[in-house]
């Protein structure tokens, strides 16, 4: 029989929830409401005057084909960052799971990149791949690889994707490793006895059992690529060349904090909030069905 713990006091549950609620309200609902309100205004930078313009900030955005282009850029960026960082992390986790000697050293080292701030990660990658100062760029040039992220949009995109994915690998690795270790060894052994090869076991047992972790990481990685990669873009390409690496969140920053156009910037934040909300709902509705808990 299940043993149930119940609280008699009616206020206690609310009291216990208060800290979390306060944090959510102060750091999420309040700013979100502010953004929503700001997105309907057209203020001057100093806040001396502002006009209520209804939805004209949104209208302006959707008439701007460069804004719509930023959606495509963000989609490409997010897709590849998520793909690269999750697949590499899974590979590393599977390999690290099999290592016996020095396992903790490997694991510790693989977690390190997570401690690096995005801006610092960006600068590090720049030191390797910037065409005129980059060490690796120098060798690439020497062996005749055409490489110029300063002018070539595809090169620049590849570079920021690699840097952003690299930074997230550690996080994914941790979760995948924990997921792998939670899979009962007996299942895998039973399959092995039945004659299933390594790859077959991974495909039919390990991967399906990892699906809750994979799903969770998918959501987290998409959100990461949408929002937290700002520092990497800012230090590495500043959205260029052309507009090839201007993702939505970077445009929020450059319009708001460089251009002082706070109305448009707020409208973009609201749109971004909606996009991520919708994406998360889609993920929960359609992908979660395929997850085995």
């Amino acid at each position: 029989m299940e043993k149930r713990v119940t609280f008699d006091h009616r206020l206690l549950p609310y009291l216990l929830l208060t800290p979390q609620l306060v944090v959510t309200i102060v750091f999420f609902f309040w700013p979100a409401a502010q953004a929503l309100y700001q997105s309907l205004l057209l203020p001057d930078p100093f806040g001396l005057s502002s006009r209520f313009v209804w939805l004209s900030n949104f209208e302006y955005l959707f008439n701007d084909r460069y804004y719509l282009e930023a959606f495509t850029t963000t989609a490409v960026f997010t897709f590849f960052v998520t793909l690269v960082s999750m697949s590499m992390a899974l590979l590393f986790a599977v390999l690290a799971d099999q290592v016996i000697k020095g396992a903790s050293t490997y694991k510790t080292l693989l977690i390190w990149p997570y401690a690096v701030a995005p801006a610092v990660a960006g600068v590090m990658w720049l030191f390797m791949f910037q065409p005129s100062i980059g060490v690796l760029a120098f060798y690439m040039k020497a062996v005749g690889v055409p490489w110029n992220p300063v002018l070539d949009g595809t090169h620049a995109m590849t570079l920021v994707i690699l840097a952003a994915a690299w930074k997230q690998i550690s996080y994914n690795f941790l979760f995948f490793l924990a997921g792998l270790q939670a899979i009962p060894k007996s299942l895998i052994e039973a399959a092995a006895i039945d004659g299933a090869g390594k790859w077959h076991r991974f495909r039919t047992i390990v991967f399906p059992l990892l699906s809750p972790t994979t799903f969770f990481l998918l959501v987290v990685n998409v959100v990461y690529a949408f929002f937290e990669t700002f520092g990497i873009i800012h230090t590495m390409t500043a959205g260029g060349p052309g507009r090839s690496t201007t993702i939505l969140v970077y445009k929020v920053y450059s319009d708001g904090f460089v251009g002082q156009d706070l109305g448009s910037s707020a409208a973009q934040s609201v749109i971004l909030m909606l996009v991520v909300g919708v994406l998360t709902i889609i993920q929960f509705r359609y992908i979660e069905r395929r997850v085995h808990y």
Partner: protein
Amino acid sequence: MNFRTIFSAATALTVVLPAMMGAAQAQTQVQFWHAMSGRLGELLDAQVAQFNESQSEYEVVATLKGNYSEALNAGIAAFRAGEQPHILQVFEVGTATMMAAKGAIKPVYEVMAEAEEPFDASAYLAAVTGYYTTAEGEMLSLPYNSSTPVLYLNKDALEAAGLDPESKPATWPEVEEILVKLKESGSACPLTTAWQSWVHLENLGAYHDVPFATQANGFGGIDTELVFNGDLQVKHISKLADWAKDGLFSYSGRRNEGGARFRSGECALFTESSAGYAGVKAEADFPFTVTNLPYWPDVEGAPLNTIIGGASLWVMSGHEAEEYTGVAKFLTFLSSPEVQAQWHQDTGYLPITHAAYELTREQGFYEENPGTDVAIKQMTGKEPTANSKGIRIGNFDQIRTVIDEELEAVWQGQKDAKAALDEAVSRGNELLRRFEQSAR
């Protein structure tokens, strides 16, 4: 030492220290937020220290707030919170933003008049202060660091290509001949540039008496429209695009990334701010020449004067009269010939007063450091016209980004010059209309 003695010592400190600091604060404090990092920051701090030592009534407190954009942002955010500094350094592209914020700023001429500080607008170089002066001749902000683009040449690279190391090409066709020879001799980067919009569009226009925007480049009102897609600009950008295709011009980046490539000897010719002089002199291990920005000889009346870049000091509103007197005294100090001449000689920025220029000349600085007077002569050689006084348009930082984006498409060979400039103009005009709306 037991707990009690530590406690009483701590109490004593907390009580006495503020009292001591209060005594020190009998001086009136003037907050000065700026964006001068590295060597420039040290020089600025030295100026402030010199001012603070020169008198005992006022204390200027200088604080570094990041790069130009960040400093402007910090100032704006502080103003919104009612915590604004007395003096804020704002780069030239932020000028229209500051001018439109009438309630947030206190014009320099007003500050000087109220503090009864001696102030003679004609003592300043019109070519420099014009950027920050109203149509009525009232100075709104005090130019602090102003520079203008010039051409740097690596003498060793010229010699290696069989050219005269002393050559000073005056026109773009002459530059082209040199670039071709450099390329033939195996140079991977005959020419690069910093600040492409500033040098190759904004200054190109001023130098050839061609407008960048209507309404006298925005000086006449905020209903200005961009017009930098004219024949001259298209011709110039097309030429650079051809050079990029033929390997004569190599793009380095939107800001001054090209500086490292010139100083390391990779690039032979470099169009960059005159303020780059100090860095080149310190780092380059080859002899170099500084000469005027080249021009197109087929344009009548060219070359005119070039325009400035850099930053000026804005006084923010909402402080006490006593504090503004301190501000006025500090601005007078900064404008004094000795301080200006020193700053000019240390940094390569232009002097802002005639007296500072004269003093530098008397000291024999220009003879000892050839090339350092190129910028000021280029700026002041001709009487400025409506097209060469400066540029004052809103959302300028964003418009420069638009120009950078479009030019990058040209250097990549994706767009021709005409299409890119047309697009930059139409996108820029949208930003101007948005600025006009918000400033209304």
